[in-house]
């Protein structure tokens, strides 16, 4: 009760600080004192402190199961393990917004400390824009999703957290994703400030690149964690469903990746300014729309857990306001900024990066249209259609071929003008080797898709070229690593898709079934009573063709609060493949639906994404030095 009150007032206090900060920043814009003193530092720090205080109080309410707090009551239960009580704090709408606020205020604080060498007015404007965003979220939090609503009479027990959210990967997935989303808000504010101050130049590029990189790393890891979770919790062996909520997290990532490439051009050549600003603004807009689409629950998705149209309207209006703000600022200041830019020579690194952006924007548009089109069609014509994996595969896969080809040759081109004297036989040889390998793989395994074979070939080509480049003297390690990781990723995903095998049957205890890959035996079921769920653990023995025996113990959990059934797959991971077994209760009491899958290269998919994130980290560390 007391804690809830303190938490609530603390947030109001934070909101007031925002207003003070904006007024102060605007006042300081016109004075001649170049140094930004302690005042802003203290204001930003106390704002951060108010949010931390609220967050701590909310976590504490969750830990002690204080059911007088409505958020705790709705999302927690006294029998829940401590770890999930804590992670449950951001496993719900209100708490996750508070976490979002925490990251917002933390980042602007860090920005202030880390931007001391930047022009004064640029810093002030960035803070102003960031505070506008913060005010929006404070209002959203306080008006529509207050995490500190008081309940009286105090309920004895809470309603519990959705069991499929009680999971270690999902406990850290939202914080990572939010670090990414919020990072993009700093890029947004900073771009607008730089535009107004006519400050879009090499120095700004060097400075903002660190933010772009760190945002990109968090977003990459955040998406990966969500995907890992889907793989073992939801997935029946899948890890990406082209589900709207997943798409919504991928879109800012693509935009940010394009920005990451283009900012280098600004850094080196001082061109493409307008385009960079557009990318910065789009990244943040996409992050915000993502939040809107997920939080309002208008998407039909596996990941939607709560919806409230009222909240949707608020985010929508707020989003519109921010977009209009960006458009107006663009309209007013863009002409002043852009002088005639130098011409780009066609055979140069600049051109290849432009082409990279071209493809990135294409992929982005495919996902954007695929996600939004059904909504638009339904509103305008009342017809409902589904857009799923086949659509995305058809439109994206063909374009991966030239894309990967350019990824292989692009980095070796020179800035400004590349002299193309002689044909590089080494490259041609690698391409041929790649084609032969993929052809053999496809042919030996009876893959009948010409198309997939070609994509695999170019995946291999990129793989070989980047591998070869590691042995050369002059290279940019983070760039090589990133492109290498991408080829690794594409190959793993393709092989995983092509070579996965599965067997599914209805079995009862004692059954023994022969299938293509061996024999599966359903030995027994044991029942355990855990703190907040009852679990049925199945015991299966699988004998493969080489007579190796493995035991897999998938689980069915019957949660009591709320009462929901979940199936936990048992996955045996090895270097080359995952063995994935899951079972489910059928209505006809004695039988269980058993699904056994062999998923090759699963581990490699995660490793390649980690490599990708590592490449970002390497680049970031180099920048700091």
């Amino acid at each position, binding site marked *: 009760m007391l804690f809830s009150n303190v938490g609530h007032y603390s947030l109001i206090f934070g909101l007031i600080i925002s207003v003070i900060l904006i007024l102060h920043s605007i006042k300081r814009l016109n004075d001649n004192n170049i140094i930004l003193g302690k005042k802003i530092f203290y204001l930003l720090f106390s704002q951060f402190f108010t949010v931390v205080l609220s967050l701590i109080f909310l976590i504490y309410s969750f830990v002690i199961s204080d059911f007088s707090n409505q958020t705790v009551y709705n999302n927690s239960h006294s029998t829940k393990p401590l770890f999930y009580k804590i992670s449950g704090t951001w496993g719900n709408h209100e708490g996750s917004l508070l976490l979002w606020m925490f990251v917002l205020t933390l980042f602007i604080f860090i920005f202030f400390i880390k931007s001391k060498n930047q022009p004064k007015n640029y810093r002030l404007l960035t803070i102003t824009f960031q505070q506008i965003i913060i005010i929006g979220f404070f209002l959203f939090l306080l008006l529509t999703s207050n995490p500190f609503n008081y309940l009286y009479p105090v309920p004895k027990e809470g309603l519990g957290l959705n069991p499929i959210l009680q999971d270690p990967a999902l406990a850290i997935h939202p914080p990572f994703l939010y670090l990414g989303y919020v990072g993009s808000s700093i890029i947004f504010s900073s771009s607008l400030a730089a535009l107004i101050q006519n400050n879009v130049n090499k120095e700004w590029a060097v400075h903002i690149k660190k933010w772009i990189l760190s945002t990109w790393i968090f977003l990459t890891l955040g998406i990966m964690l969500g995907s890992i979770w889907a793989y073992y919790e939801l997935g029946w062996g899948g890890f990406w469903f082209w589900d709207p909520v997943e798409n919504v997290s991928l879109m800012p990532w693509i935009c940010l990746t394009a920005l990451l490439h283009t900012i280098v051009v600004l850094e080196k050549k001082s061109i493409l300014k307008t385009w960079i600003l557009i990318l910065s603004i789009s990244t943040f807009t996409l992050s915000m729309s993502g939040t809107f689409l997920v939080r309002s629950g*208008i998407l039909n998705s596996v990941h939607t857990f709560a919806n409230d149209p009222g909240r*949707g309207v608020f985010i*929508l209006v707020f989003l519109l306001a921010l977009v209009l703000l960006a*458009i107006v600022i663009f309209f007013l200041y863009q002409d002043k900024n852009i002088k005639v830019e130098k011409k780009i020579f066609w055979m140069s690194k600049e051109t290849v990066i432009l082409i990279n952006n071209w493809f990135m924007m294409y992929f982005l548009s495919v996902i954007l249209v695929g996600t939004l089109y059904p*909504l638009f069609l339904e*509103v*305008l014509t009342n017809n409902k259609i589904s857009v799923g994996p086949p659509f995305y595969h058809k439109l994206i896969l063909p374009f991966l071929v030239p894309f990967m080809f350019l990824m292989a040759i692009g980095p070796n081109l020179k800035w400004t003008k590349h002299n193309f004297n002689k044909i590089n036989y080494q490259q041609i040889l690698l391409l041929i080797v790649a084609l032969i390998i993929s052809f053999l793989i496809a042919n030996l395994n009876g893959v009948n898709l010409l198309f997939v074979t070609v994509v695999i070939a170019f995946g291999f080509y990129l793989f070989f070229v980047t591998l070869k480049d590691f042995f050369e003297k002059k290279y940019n390690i983070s760039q090589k690593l990133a492109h290498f990781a991408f080829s690794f990723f594409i190959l793993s995903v393709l092989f995983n898709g092509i070579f996965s095998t599965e067997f599914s049957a209805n079995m009862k205890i004692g059954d023994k079934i022969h299938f293509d890959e061996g024999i599966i035996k359903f030995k027994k079921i044991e029942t355990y009573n855990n703190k907040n769920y009852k679990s049925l653990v199945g015991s299966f023995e699988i004998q493969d063709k080489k007579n190796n025996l493995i035991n897999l113990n998938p689980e069915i959990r019957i949660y009591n609060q709320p009462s929901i059934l979940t199936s936990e797959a048992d996955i045996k991971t090895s270097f080359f493949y995952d063995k994935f077994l899951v079972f489910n209760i059928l209505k006809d009491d004695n039988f269980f639906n058993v699904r056994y899958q062999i998923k090759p290269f699963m581990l490699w998919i995660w490793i390649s994404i980690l490599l990708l994130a590592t490449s970002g980290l390497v680049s970031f560390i180099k920048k700091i030095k």
Partner: protein
Amino acid sequence: MKKNITYILIFFLSFFIIFILYKSLNKENVYIPEKVLNEKISNFSSKDLFTENIINSEDFILKNKYSLINIWASWCLPCRAEHEILMEISKDDSIFLIGINYKERSVNAKSFLHKVGDPFDIIFTDKDGTLSINLGAFGVPETYIVNSDQEIIKRYIGTLSKKQFQEIKKIINK
């Protein structure tokens, strides 16, 4: 001038997108395909719950002015909730009640009907749920009102409400 037009276009585009998103906020996620209404249902056949003889839907629907087809199961709680309404409807002789017992053992279904009363004139069994899919149903409970030409006049997904009960009464007493 060209610049201004671009801005105006972007401006209106963002308004348009936001407007569509706003509209879709109020859309319901439940979806009933329009075209199923006023369409004929094809004949279906399966075992009778009690006699275990193979029976055809045509034999009943063609003979009666109106038939009500109700997909149900005793394990489905919403079905239990509408049971009372079905009992009420069954008192009216101008409508023929066809039950489709969805994914259930006959023993359980029979003992349930024995306990609370049987509103149906005939019950088809649908052990694997395929009969219902062939009807275009989503699950249990689901109700169709069909005329003697086998045309679907009304379709209700989910538990029947009091209001829908009145609606059905109005149709059959026309």
